[in-house]
């Protein structure tokens, strides 16, 4: 990727005017592409911070902490790079090749890059300069808004009433931010509907219903004409163009941005008609030594207000600096609403079907608050645009198809449950990793041009999948498809130590009756394994032999979670989550649970799995905590394992007026049967007592819904990053058959699935799909039904509570120690802070922290904390 010999830039001074996201991108990209160049780079930004993630500005309100928006700071550690913050460039002297900052600092340059961004426009109206009126653009803005709402609320002694002027993406984000601060929010939008620059009228109306559900008040078709002060001076009232007025203790303007081009203008560079420094496809301005990127640059007469074109421009400039010929082009990026509760809205292309002959196909469901529209060419073949409100699942799949054949009937694509029918190869410009904004083309290029052959190499090369990781399955598919195309045999090797897949290894271990990792790796692997194959082999051995997973050599195979039977948290402490089958817990158990939490200063939380958890337990305390829990009849909840977690249920026929079967008893029975069963991934069940489906069973690996005649069994559902509805396997079965079919299904999955493959993709990718599975499970077409049931029964017969067994074994207890040479000493680096009467791990920004969690908790109860 990088030039091998001398860099074209050697000895040159580069100055970047502006310290925002594109400046960061340029610095990062230049360092990466020219690691050995001897240039020097100076970035001058007027905000008093390192460049931060302005795109996610609204997330500041969730954390009230600038750190939440931090971008990689290592960029500024590079000795060739200087970052100046809190100072701005006042003048650009192109003749002398020198920039002068407001503080009088001068930097000479060989190449200058303008990256000054834009500023938030405020309408020309009386009173926009009153205290309490803000724009919504910078970290300073959001900090000031937070402070104002807090102090104004105290001064007024009542809820603060906010007005946001502008109903676009940022305006709605600002309104949500005001709500998160406890203020009421009214959005005033001059046009007829919300997000009018991105959505059509129908989408805008649906969005209105959604944000009104969040408690916002929406006024469309009116403008704010004047702002009047309250009795004590700050803004108090907003007058609207229809003659009405609104109480306004705080006003936020979000009516658009303008390029910051003053320095460029004064230096005599060409400026676009609608503002912005004119650049060509190379991002050079009218002076070839000066370049411009991001929102301050006018390309084809337009300034962009999104990060993606800005990043592309930064990449173009770096490429050109190093002798490349990359050009900038503008693609329709589409727009997505973010940071407004759980409200989703997104669009791309010709949303209003303005093109000649364009046809619109829409689906409107005001009850479920969904709106989907596709705009297609007159022959209904080419996709020209799309609007999605309420449910935007299709947006990511369809946006890359803009201007291309849709490949399906548009009505079928947007019909309820119709999206699944569309399974198209991702085009090169489809964004696969939205965290790092990496396209399918870039991932393919990593394989074809940079020779990546493993997912790790693809991650390192493209940065895709390195933030949240939810796109890794998609990356893997792309990688394998590319490798296959280029004739490389795609390896389904588990890892470098085993050349076969998990399913194949399962078969080998089972057939050869191998009992230990050493035997397995000696016969079929290399070396001593790794963090991938060791737990996989442990899981297979456990499924096959039902042996305690810490017995003998198996102990060294387990990830720390399985090793100490607790789930590690971000600071190295653990969670303690006992099983509460069917969501039931007895009062005397609850008393002891509470007392343990009290005694150890643990954080108590009702988990997403219908049971209670304690967080913050230290390694050395786990045995004592569990001894007390086991004494009142609790057992391990396997919240740490790739195994059955819990079975969610309702109270069913036992208590509920609508229940038609005893779902709770069924859930308890099933949880006791499958508890501790090791599997390729975690397993979740749901049992609902009637068709109202309160247990959300269809979102689980095993979903059971009561009918008047018995049970309906659904399989292959999950929540998580890619939710999938479970599909109906069999209807109206009795208790006995229900258990029989679940036995067969689970054991088949355990045998066949890949490592970390959940049931949904296993069902989807299995040859013959659901119909074939039904033949195997229900009709027993392979004649293995009894064998599968017997394997489950063996597990049930051998089951022992792992914690109970461990507590009785002094050898096992030895490992619950933080320091082998200082028993009883806790990790001195652990630090906690009070939060809502309990504790949480301390962060870097916390000024006062406590080593002892009990002290942190007591500090919380002694002095009620102000809302952070």
């Amino acid at each position, binding site marked *: 990727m990088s030039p091998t010999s001398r860099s074209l830039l050697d000895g040159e001074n580069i100055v970047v005017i502006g310290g925002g996201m594109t400046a960061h991108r340029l610095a990062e990209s230049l360092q990466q592409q020219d690691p050995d160049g001897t240039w020097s780079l100076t970035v001058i930004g007027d905000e008093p911070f390192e460049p931060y993630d302005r795109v996610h500005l609204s997330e500041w309100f969730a954390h009230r902490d600038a750190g939440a928006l931090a971008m990689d700071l290592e960029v500024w550690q590079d000795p060739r790079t200087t970052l100046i913050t809190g100072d701005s460039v006042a003048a650009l002297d192109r003749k002398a090749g020198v920039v002068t900052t407001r503080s009088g600092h001068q930097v000479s340059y060989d190449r200058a890059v303008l990256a000054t961004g834009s500023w938030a426009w405020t309408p020309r109206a009386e009173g926009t300069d009153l205290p309490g009126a803000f724009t919504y653009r910078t970290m300073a803005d959001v900090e000031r808004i937070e402070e104002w709402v807090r102090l104004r609320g105290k001064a007024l002694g009542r809820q603060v009433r906010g007005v946001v002027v502008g109903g676009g993406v940022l305006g709605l984000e600002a309104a949500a931010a005001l709500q998160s601060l406890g203020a009421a929010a009214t959005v005033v939008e001059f046009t007829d509907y919300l997000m009018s620059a991105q959505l059509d009228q129908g989408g805008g109306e649906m969005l209105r219903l959604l944000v009104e559900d969040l408690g916002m008040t929406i006024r469309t078709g009116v403008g704010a004409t004047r702002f009047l002060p309250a009795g004590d001076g700050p803004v108090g009232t907003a007058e609207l163009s229809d003659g009405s007025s609104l109480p306004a203790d705080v006003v936020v303007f979000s009516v658009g941005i303008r390029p910051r081009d003053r320095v460029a203008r004064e230096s005599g560079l060409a400026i676009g008609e609608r503002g912005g420094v004119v650049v060509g496809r190379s991002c050079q301005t009218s002076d070839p030594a000066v370049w411009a990127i991001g929102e301050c640059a006018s390309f084809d007469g337009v300034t962009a207000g999104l990060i993606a074109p800005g990043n592309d421009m930064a990449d173009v400039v770096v490429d050109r600096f190093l002798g490349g010929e990359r050009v900038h082009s503008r693609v329709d990026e589409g727009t997505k609403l973010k940071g407004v509760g759980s409200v989703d809205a997104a669009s791309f292309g010709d949303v209003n079907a303005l093109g000649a002959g364009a046809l619109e196909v829409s689906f409107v469901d005001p009850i479920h608050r969904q709106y989907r529209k596709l705009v297609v060419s007159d022959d209904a073949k080419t996709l020209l645009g799309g609007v999605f409100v309420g449910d935007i699942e299709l947006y990511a799949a369809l946006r890359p198809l803009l201007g291309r054949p849709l490949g399906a009937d548009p009505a079928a694509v947007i019909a309820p449950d119709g999206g699944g029918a569309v399974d198209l190869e991702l085009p090169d410009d489809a964004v696969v990793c939205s965290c790092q904004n990496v396209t399918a083309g870039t991932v393919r290029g990593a394989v074809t041009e940079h020779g990546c052959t493993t997912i*790790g190499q693809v*991650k390192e090369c493209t940065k895709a999948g390195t933030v949240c990781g939810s796109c890794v399955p998609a990356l893997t598919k792309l990688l394998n498809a590319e490798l296959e195309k280029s004739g490389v045999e795609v390896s389904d090797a588990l890892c*470098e*130590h085993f050349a076969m897949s998990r399913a194949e290894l399962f078969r080998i271990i089972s057939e050869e009756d191998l009992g230990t990792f050493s035997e397995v790796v000696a016969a079929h692997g*290399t070396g001593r394994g790794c963090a991938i*194959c060791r737990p996989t082999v442990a899981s297979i051995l456990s499924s096959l032999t039902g042996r305690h997973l810490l017995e003998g050599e198996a102990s060294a*195979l387990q990830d720390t979670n399985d090793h100490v039977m607790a789930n590690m948290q971000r600071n*190295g402490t653990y969670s303690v989550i006992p099983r509460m089958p069917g969501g039931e817990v007895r009062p005397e158990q609850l008393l002891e649970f509470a007392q343990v939490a009290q005694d150890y200063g643990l954080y108590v939380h009702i988990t997403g799995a219908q049971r209670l958890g304690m967080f913050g337990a230290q390694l050395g305390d786990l045995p004592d905590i569990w001894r007390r829990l086991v004494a009142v009849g609790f057992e391990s909840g396997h919240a740490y394992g790739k195994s059955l977690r819990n079975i969610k249920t309702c109270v069913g026929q036992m208590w509920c007026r609508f229940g038609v079967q005893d779902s709770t008893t069924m859930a308890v029975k099933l949880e006791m049967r499958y508890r501790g069963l090791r599997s390729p991934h975690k397993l979740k069940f749901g049992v609902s007592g009637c068709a109202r489906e309160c247990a959300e069973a269809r979102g689980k690996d095993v979903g059971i819904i009561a009918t008047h005649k018995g049970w309906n069994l659904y399989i292959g559902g999950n929540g998580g990053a890619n939710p999938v509805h479970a599909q109906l396997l069999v209807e109206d079965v009795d208790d006995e058959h229900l258990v029989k079919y679940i036995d067969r299904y689970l054991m088949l999955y355990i045998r066949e699935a890949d490592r970390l493959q959940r049931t949904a993709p296993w069902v989807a990718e299995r040859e013959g799909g659901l119909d074939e599975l039904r033949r195997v499970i229900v009709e027993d077409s392979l004649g293995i039904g009894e064998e599968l049931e017997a394997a489950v029964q063996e597990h049930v017969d051998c089951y022992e509570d792992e914690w109970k067994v461990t507590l009785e074994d002094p050898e096992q207890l030895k490992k619950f120690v933080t320091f082998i040479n200082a028993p009883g000493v806790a990790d001195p680096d652990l630090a906690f802070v009070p939060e809502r009467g309990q504790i949480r791990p301390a962060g870097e920004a916390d000024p006062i922290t406590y080593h002892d969690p009990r002290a942190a908790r007591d500090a919380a109860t002694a002095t009620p904390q102000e809302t952070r």
Partner: protein
Amino acid sequence: MSDLVDVCALTDLEPERGVGALLGGHQVAVFRLADDTVRAVQQLDPYSGANVIARGLVGTTRVAQDDGPERDVATVTTPMLKQVWNLETGAVIDSGGKPKKPLAVFRAEVRDGRVLVADAPEAPVEA
């Protein structure tokens, strides 16, 4: 120059697992390998900031040598976000796409059935 400190008996350690130790100001992760030799690196996981390296899984990876055939070297994987290091040198083997952050290595040996670990890290090696 560092001094070797007696930390525990070899039999106090499980084969192919690690344990934390406190050596003066340092938190150290000490591992017993399958061949009953020991290794020690810093306990702090530089990616997560938590003291958890000793709780990671050990294994091996095959590396090419400058001269001679490939060989297996011992590795550890952090339980937090699964980065992998060479236990001999502290060098990063798999950074998960993040910048490479090596571990400090502490000299460690077994003498008369006791595990001895240096109380200060060795000079860092080139990653």
